[in-house]
């Protein structure tokens, strides 16, 4: 087994960390505004778990990097091109239907990832994954449950989630198509095999879409590269809001 450089491990862990952070930040926008109190609590709960995962992963990434950056330096003082989250995570909430579509697609991906990472050659990553996998199982239960209710609810709800699925499907290729870094980490036994990850995701999402009476959209050819730092326009706006205090008062501790 080859041993990836610290720099490569840093970049790989940032992909996981930033996806949780950015998705958690998006869900945080919902708090107080969800369709019912139960959903407000459910979305807040998921946001909280995701921010928790991001903290553990960012702290670890900072240690690997060895330049003294802690979780907050990494979260608040990097600019968009340095973020490594998958592009799907940064897509706007739009309506509850689109939020649920985004969530289910990412929950199924994170669940497969964390299940495999439990046995990672990187023991610290394995420990973080062991905690995250329990949380993510619940996240998927929430999002898949809602996707089915909305897909198989009223004509309006079906049309809305079908539209959300159509709008977001083009970002799923990035989740599943490995690049050189994914391959390197898989070869070292740190990350799961991309083929296995794709298979688990296809199985899970296939079953949910079927039960939700939703058609799987056609594959879209554009390769999105959030995980390599090439983002959609949305991320810059999110970071502008998220980072404004630490950047306005660089000497302050909170």
């Amino acid at each position, binding site marked *: 087994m080859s041993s990836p450089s610290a720099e490569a491990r840093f970049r790989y862990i940032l992909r996981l960390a930033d996806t949780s952070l950015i998705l958690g930040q998006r869900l*945080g926008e919902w708090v107080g505004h969800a369709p019912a109190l139960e959903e407000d*609590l459910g979305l*807040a709960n998921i*946001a909280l778990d995701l921010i928790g995962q991001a*903290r553990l992963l960012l702290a670890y990434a900072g240690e690997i990097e060895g330049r003294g950056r802690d979780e907050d330096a990494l979260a608040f003082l990097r600019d968009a091109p340095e973020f490594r989250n998958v592009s799907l995570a940064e897509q706007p909430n739009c309506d509850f239907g689109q939020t649920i579509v985004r969530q289910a697609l990412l929950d199924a991906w994170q669940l497969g990832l964390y299940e495999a990472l439990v046995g990672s050659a990187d023991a610290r990553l394995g420990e973080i994954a062991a905690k995250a996998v329990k949380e993510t199982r619940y996240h998927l239960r929430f999002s898949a449950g809602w996707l089915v209710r909305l897909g198989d609810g*009223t004509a309006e709800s079906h049309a809305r989630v079908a539209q959300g699925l159509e709008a977001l499907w083009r970002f799923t290729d990035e989740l599943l198509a490995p690049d050189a870094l994914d391959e390197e980490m898989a070869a070292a036994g740190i990350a799961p095999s991309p083929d296995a990850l794709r298979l688990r995701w296809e199985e899970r999402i296939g079953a949910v879409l079927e039960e*939700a009476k939703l058609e799987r959209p056609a594959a879209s050819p554009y390769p999105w590269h959030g995980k390599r730092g090439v983002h959609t326009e949305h991320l810059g706006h999110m970071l502008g809001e998220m980072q404004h205090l630490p950047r306005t008062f660089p000497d302050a501790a*909170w």
Partner: protein
Amino acid sequence: MYTQALDSPAPEARPGSSGGQAALERRFEERIERDEKIEPKDWMPDAYRQTLIRQISQHAHSEIVGMLPEGNWITRAPSLRRKAVLIAKVQDEGGHGMYLYSAAETLGIARAELLEQLLDGRAKYSSIFNYPTLTWADVGAIGWLVDGAAIMNQIPICRCSYGPYARAMVRICKEESFHQRQGFEIMLALARGTGEQRAMAQDALNRWWWPSIMMFGPSDATSTHTAQSMRWRIKRFTNDELRQKFIDVTVPQAEFLGLKIPDPALRRDEISQHYLTGPIDWSEFKAVLQGNGPCNHERLQARRTAHEAGRWVREAAAAYAAKHGGRGAQPRSAAHIASPRAEAPCHE
């Protein structure tokens, strides 16, 4: 959080004592006298029931509307730890709203109806949430002052004569005291921080001090309903007693933080050992109560928008349940994934 209307029974609900009710009422009063808990199936005077519905639902609405001013800072919290703590806090408030709506439902009114009363403006919620959160320090000030005031009000309600309300309050008070400490800790970090942070903390105290001490409601001299609520043991202390207790606890905390209470007349009375404040501007309190505060419009509009925007979602959930065997219907996709949590906060 808290509603300032603890002492305002429904106007239509004055205790009556006509006919065969007299014996029931006497027995009820005796139970109150013996400090027995009144439970949902027990006989109770209609005025008592209506007063509780109003008070508990206003309290629940306050929790829900109270999610908005603090939720305003979730996306901008200055560190990941602060962000996580704030999300958890706002989530707790939603949870308090749920227990309280459930407690109100034991009195024979549905949550949907209570929600309608909030959205159409018939029901009130605590006026404190009609003030804006303009800087990060406001999140600290709300925890420290608003939750601090809420605790003063709510601890006695843990001994309230109505069982479900008293029990809900025990759990709520535990969480509120965490919130109060978290808020104080935010203020402490600011007070020990840079000059800009200290100025931010002082500005927040300047804006939140008076609204916080008004949270206890009108002074005893003008509060006409306190006596009945105290006799029913829904309320245990008067507004002024609770306000004084809060001021006495909070002034030394402000001194510890190195912040100045925005009241030039504030002084410690050596004889009574109390801090005495200058006169409270009740015209401001009344204006906010009547809907003319800085954020009354925004708060209610946010609730209405969320309710309207979520209508199709609630309709879909109902349609799905109808197709698949009733309210308990659970999608397979949700069911086959075992939940590791005891309480899943979703419709299942």
